[in-house]
Structure formats: structure tokens, C-alpha cells
């Protein structure tokens, strides 16, 4: 196997002049690429904190009795902070990282529409995260990430719960500002010749996500304002004893938080479309269907919120919400089948990125099917508030979002840093993650259906054997995270770095039509988009990539070309271009 450890001729000069120091990432910058990396590093930091809390939860659940937490309240604090951090400080900011870095590049733009606003949106996140964690010293939030009253009002005496609500307010503002920026950038800054239906599907997914954010997050802002007033100003909007209504919070919260599930997973769909097509060397199947189904999910996502409240909902309303919840599986199914048709018959490269994308496909389908099961009222009433629900949303958010994030990191790390990640480590990371993930979350379906409630530290002894399997799998899953962290650091600091070059995956989207990492204003001259960003296997694509290589220099050739390269033309033919 040919391994390039020396710098590739032609790519070095450009590469070195674009190199940034670590200090460049620690200060205010309006460059979307720096902001993208700032988002990513911040999100990874919080991922480790949230992951540590997950390990403490699983340690606690190794035995049916209290072990780690001193009491139930502390256990409540563990899962409250775990859920909140993973959602608001890991997955959502991580997608903002991908969006910030990639959207302007994919559109051939020099930056986002509003660079200053972009930086401001990012810099709201660290203080919000610190505020939330500092709640530990003021009586940590303990009402779950859903923060249902009266648990979050009358039964959460610590100021940490108020700090939690203010922190979510700040994070919501950050999300809205970021989403506004994406919408304006995508609407107005596409290059000539790139209509909406020539955009990469990742850009479509960010557009759909941004629409959800700007339409749903204001509702959470309104609800949080009232919740804070209940806590600090003596109102009782959510206190039935004073004429308030707890169900009102549930309606407001889920009107935001169900669409928020799509905020967390739609960008993953976009990542998947990019990776599967590129690494299968095949045009994406059903481009328009995938693009429009993102919008359909964004709109239908607003019609399903009350399925989270089937047990407290007026019976007359259960059937309509059951139907809408099932209908939303249709656009998701369109995507799944389109991806399967994309890889079907393709020249699949089982790179780390592609393995994670295929892993996403398999695990997300399980999460999707259990979602349809939960949409059915009779089944939902049976498993409500059990580990079945925990299993379902982890299959969606870990099996979906996190595996897509990993895939995205393996795919775009070479563009961001100029260096390849180690493929062998990547594959080890994938298989450990994939197997450990499955054994962590799949058995939770079983204990859930047997009746083990969620959010309890003390449980019936007959559930212990399965919980032991779950906990040890979770520990392995937690440790597997350090493989990718090590891989990233090692790829940057090792002596014999693997220089990526501009386009190591021989991809057709525009972020690859520049050096790695890209220069300050992204492109050397005016970039011209290839007419079909997924037109792999065509003569035109071959010539486009040929010209690109002449202009920008060669790229890391290990994965996209045969090991024994007989001639350049044959190599290109074999790689499907």
C-alpha cells in the first residue's frame, strides 16, 4: 500500500502559508473557518463533560442500589446535566461548526453574510456553558433537560435551575443568530450558476435546520422567560395551585424540542449525502427528493410535538398527533431509500468516513423504527417513561447525529487541517464505537419493555444483569471517544504527517476546489462550481478533477485510487471519476 508521508509536490507552499497558530483560535475572529473550529473544539470539550456524566450514570446503574450518587437528587443532577450538555452544548454547536466551516466554502463564498454576527453567536456559547456548569456551586439543575414544572419550579430550590434556564436562553439566542446568518448566506451568496437545486445537500440540510431554528426557538424563549419569572418573580404560570398550568410548559417546550430533534439530525443527513456519494463514487440517488424531504421534515416537525405528551393529552387529540408522527417517517424514509440506492452498485470505499456513514444508516433506521412504534398510542402508553424511550432517542441522537459527526470529522478533517487522519485508527474507532454503541443502547429496549423506568438510580434487582451489560458497553463506548481525539491530535503533531492536499477524496463539491486548509478568503481567484456536485463517474467530472489537480496540485492518493497505479487514466477510471 502506498503511503505518502512526505509533502506532496505542489501542495506544500499553499498549505504552509494558510497555517494558523493555536492562539488564532483563542481570540475573537470573524473568519468563518476559525469560528467553525472554535465551535468544534468548544463542542468537543463539552462532549467530554457530558460523556463523563454519562459514565457516572452508568456506573450508578451497575447495581440496583445507590452507589455513586449520594441520593436521588444528585442522580437527577447527573442526567439533567448530561442531557442538557449533550443537546445544547455538544450536538447543536457541533453542527454549527460544520455549517460555519463548510457552507461558505460549498457556496464558493468568501465568508458568511455577517461575519461579526457569526463570531458573536459563537462567543455566546462559552459563557452560557460555564454559567450552566457553575450551577453546580449554587444547587445544580435537577429537573431533567425537559425542565418540567413543578419539578423545575417548586421542587428545585437551588439557583442552579435558574442559571440553567438563563444559559438555555443564551444558547437559544446563539442558535437563532447563527441560523439567521445561514439563511441569508444560502439565499443571497450562491455563485452564479448555482441555483437551489445545484446546492450540495449538506447546504440544503443546513437551510432546513436553520428554518426550524428560527421558527421554533422563539417559542422556547417565550416559555423560558415565563419559567424564569416563576422562579424569581413569584408568578405562577406553571403552578396549578395559583391558577397556572403545567401542561402549558409541556406544550411550549415540545413545540420547540421536537423540532430540535431535527435540528440535531438534519445536518447529519446532509453529511451522509456528501459522504455516501463521494465514497461510493456514484451520483446521489434522488437529489431533489432528498433536498425537498429536508424541508418536508422541517415543516412536519412542527405538527408532532404532542406525541411526547400522550399520557397527559386529551384522548381526542391523541389520534391526530399519532398520525402526524407516523407521517413524518415518510420523508425520512425517502432519504433512507435514496441513500441505499446511492450506495447500491457503487464502487464503495470503506474509509473511516464511509464506515461511520453506513453505521449511521443502520443505527438510525433502528431509532426511526422505534420512533414509529412510539408514535402508536397504545404502545407509547405502555412504555412511556421507560428505558425504551431512552434507547429510542439514543439510537437517533448517538446512532444518528454522533456517528454522522464522526463521519464528517473523518471526511473534512483533511480540508480543515491539511492532514489526513490515520485510517487504521479510524477503522478501529468505528468498530469499537459501533459494537459498544449497539450493546449499550439496544438492550435498553428490553429493560424498557419489561418496565424499568427511566430517571431512577434505584431499580428492581431483576434488571441488573442487563444493566451490567449496558454499563460495561457504555464504558467501552466512552473510552472509544478517546481514539478519535488521539487520532486528531496525533495527525497534527506526529513527525511524518500525511499531507492531504486539496482534494484527497476526489470530491466534486466546492470546498475541495481550494487548498487544504483554505486561504484566508477561501479560494485562489473566482471559483467555478461543477454543474453537478454529485456527478461522479462522468467524463465531465473526470476532466474537472484533472484540471483541478493541475491547478491546485496533487492530493493524498491512498484511498481513492488503486494501490498499484498503472497509469493516471486507469487510476481515474478505477476511482469512478
Amino acid at each position, binding site marked *: 500500500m502506498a503511503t505518502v508521508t512526505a509533502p506532496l509536490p505542489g501542495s506544500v507552499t499553499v498549505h504552509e502559508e494558510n497555517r494558523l497558530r493555536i492562539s488564532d483560535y483563542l481570540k475573537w475572529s470573524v473568519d468563518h473557518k476559525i469560528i467553525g473550529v472554535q465551535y468544534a473544539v468548544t463542542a468537543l470539550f463539552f462532549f467530554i463533560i457530558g460523556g463523563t456524566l454519562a459514565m457516572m450514570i452508568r456506573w450508578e446503574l451497575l447495581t440496583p442500589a445507590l452507589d455513586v450518587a449520594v441520593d436521588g437528587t444528585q442522580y437527577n443532577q447527573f442526567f439533567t446535566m448530561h442531557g442538557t450538555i449533550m443537546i445544547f452544548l455538544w450536538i447543536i454547536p457541533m453542527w454549527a461548526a460544520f455549517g460555519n466551516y463548510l457552507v461558505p466554502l460549498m457556496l464558493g463564498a468568501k465568508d458568511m*453574510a*455577517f461575519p461579526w454576527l457569526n463570531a458573536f453567536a459563537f462567543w455566546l456559547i462559552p459563557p452560557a456553558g460555564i454559567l450552566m456548569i457553575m450551577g453546580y456551586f449554587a444547587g445544580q439543575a435537577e429537573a431533567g433537560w425537559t425542565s418540567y414544572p413543578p419539578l423545575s419550579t417548586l421542587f428545585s430550590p437551588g439557583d442552579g435551575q435558574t442559571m440553567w434556564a438563563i444559559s438555555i436562553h443564551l444558547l437559544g439566542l446563539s442558535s437563532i443568530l447563527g441560523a*439567521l446568518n445561514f439563511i441569508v448566506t444560502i439565499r443571497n451568496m450562491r455563485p452564479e450558476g448555482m441555483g437551489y437545486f445545484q446546492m450540495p445537500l449538506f447546504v440544503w440540510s443546513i437551510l432546513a435546520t436553520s428554518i426550524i431554528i428560527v*421558527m421554533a426557538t*422563539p417559542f422556547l424563549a*417565550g416559555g423560558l422567560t*415565563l419559567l424564569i419569572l416563576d422562579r424569581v418573580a413569584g408568578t405562577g*404560570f406553571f403552578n396549578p395551585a395559583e391558577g397556572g398550568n403545567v401542561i402549558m410548559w409541556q406544550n*411550549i417546550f415540545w413545540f420547540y424540542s421536537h423540532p430540535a430533534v431535527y435540528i440535531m439530525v438534519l445536518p447529519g443527513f446532509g453529511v451522509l449525502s456528501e459522504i455516501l456519494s463521494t465514497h461510493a463514487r456514484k451520483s446521489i440517488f434522488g437529489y431533489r427528493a432528498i433536498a425537498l424531504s429536508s424541508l418536508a421534515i422541517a415543516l412536519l416537525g412542527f405538527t408532532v410535538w404532542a406525541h411526547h405528551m400522550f399520557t397527559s393529552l386529551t384522548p381526542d387529540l391523541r389520534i391526530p398527533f399519532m398520525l402526524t408522527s407516523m407521517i413524518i417517517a415518510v420523508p425520512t424514509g425517502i432519504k433512507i431509500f435514496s441513500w441505499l440506492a446511492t450506495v447500491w452498485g457503487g464502487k464503495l470505499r470503506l474509509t473511516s468516513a464511509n464506515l461511520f456513514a453506513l453505521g449511521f444508516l443502520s443505527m438510525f433506521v433502528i431509532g426511526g423504527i422505534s420512533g414509529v412504534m412510539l408514535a402508536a398510542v397504545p404502545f407509547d402508553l405502555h412504555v412511556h417513561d421507560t428505558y425504551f424511550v431512552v434507547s429510542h432517542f439514543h439510537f437517533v441522537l448517538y446512532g444518528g447525529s454522533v456517528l454522522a459527526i464522526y463521519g464528517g470529522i473523518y471526511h473534512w478533517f483533511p480540508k480543515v487541517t491539511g492532514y489526513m487522519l490515520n485510517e487504521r485508527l479510524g477503522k478501529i474507532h468505528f468498530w469499537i464505537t459501533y459494537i459498544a454503541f449497539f450493546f449499550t443502547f439496544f438492550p435498553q429496549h428490553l429493560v424498557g419493555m419489561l418496565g424499568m423506568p427511566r430517571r431512577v438510580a434505584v431499580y428492581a434487582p431483576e434488571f441488573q444483569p442487563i444493566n451490567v451489560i449496558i454499563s460495561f458497553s457504555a464504558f467501552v463506548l466512552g473510552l472509544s471517544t478517546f481514539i478519535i481525539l488521539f487520532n486528531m491530535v496525533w495527525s497534527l503533531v506526529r513527525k511524518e504527517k500525511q499531507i492531504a492536499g486539496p482534494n484527497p477524496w476526489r470530491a466534486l463539491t466546492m470546498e475541495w476546489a481550494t487548498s487544504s486548509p483554505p486561504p484566508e478568503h477561501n479560494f485562489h481567484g473566482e471559483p467555478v462550481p461543477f454543474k453537478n456536485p454529485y456527478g461522479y463517474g462522468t467524463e465531465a467530472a473526470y476532466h474537472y478533477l484533472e484540471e483541478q489537480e493541475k491547478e491546485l496540485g496533487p492530493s493524498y492518493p491512498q484511498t481513492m485510487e488503486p494501490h498499484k497505479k498503472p497509469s493516471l487514466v486507469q487510476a481515474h477510471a478505477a476511482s469512478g471519476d
Partner: protein
Amino acid sequence: MAQQIRDNERPLTRQEALALKNRRTLVTVFQMSWILVFVSLVIVNLQIRSTIQDLPALTPIQFIPPLLATAAILISGWTAHQGVKAIRANQRDTFLIQWRYTLVLGGAFLAVMIAIFIFNPYVGIPQYGAIFRVMIGYHAVHALVIGGWMIQVFRNAQAGAYSPRDYWGVEAAAKLWYFVIIAWILFYVVLFLI
């Protein structure tokens, strides 16, 4: 002076035109997004009201001032629009007059809102009185902040800023004031009419 006139007549460059288009899109999408916070408060209001048997009828002294304030803010929208048209036509004096009317009418509206906030007609009804006050206060904060921006625009214009070629500050302030008006109409219907 001649240089300034030439600058005013120069068409926008491609980059300037794009920046303006971006700003206009941003304000439009922001308005569509942020109005939903007001909608969420309306939903809470209606939810709380549905649990109350009989909401006491407002006395004339409680009903007429908000009605007049609504008329004032609607007229202020028209004068703000006239102001934007004037600056676009390079009629600075007309702009200053129209903008001054807008500020006075907006100030009158805000004064009534502060009075309603203090003399809350539903103070005896615990949660409805609270949501009524939250809605009035929340809207007033928006009126105050955007009104402050409009005062700054007025001062800038007095100092010679803005031209037919570059009047984004005026346009943005006017658009946000329209937002305040639309949000108020939404609230007014819910709080005083239905």
C-alpha cells in the same frame, strides 16, 4: 461638497448591493422569527384565559387610552414610512419632520403602555394579571429599544447622515418599528378586543 454629491449619485457596487440585500433579508427573517415569541405569549394568554370563568369588563378609562395609543402607533407607522420615502427622495427636511412625528407618537404610545403596566386592570386575577403585565412590559421593552435607535437615527440625520444612496439606518429603524406595530396589533386584539 461636490465630491459628496458625486458619491451619492454613484450606483452601488456589486459588493455594496450584496451587503444591502443581505441586511434586508436578515431583518425580514429576523422579524418572522422574533414575532413568534409574541405568538407564544399570546398562546399562554389564551390558555390562562380559558381557565377563567368571567374576565371583568374594562371600564372606559381602561379601554380608551390603549385604543388611542393604538391609533397613535398606527399613525406613527405611516409617518415613519413617509420619512423613509423622504430620505430616499433626498428631502432631508421632510424626513426630519416626519421622523419627529413618529417619535412623538411613539413616545405617547410608550407613555400609555407604562401607565397600563403600572395600573394593570387585571391585577386582582393572579395569573391573567401576570401574563397581561408580562405582555405589556415585553412589548414596551421592544418599543423602548427600537425607539432609542430611532432617536439616534434622527440625531444622525440632523448631523447630515443618510442619503438616497445610503439610508440603511433609516430603513432598518423603520422596519423594526413596523415590527413593533405588528406585534402590538397582535397583542391589542388579544388583550383588549377578544
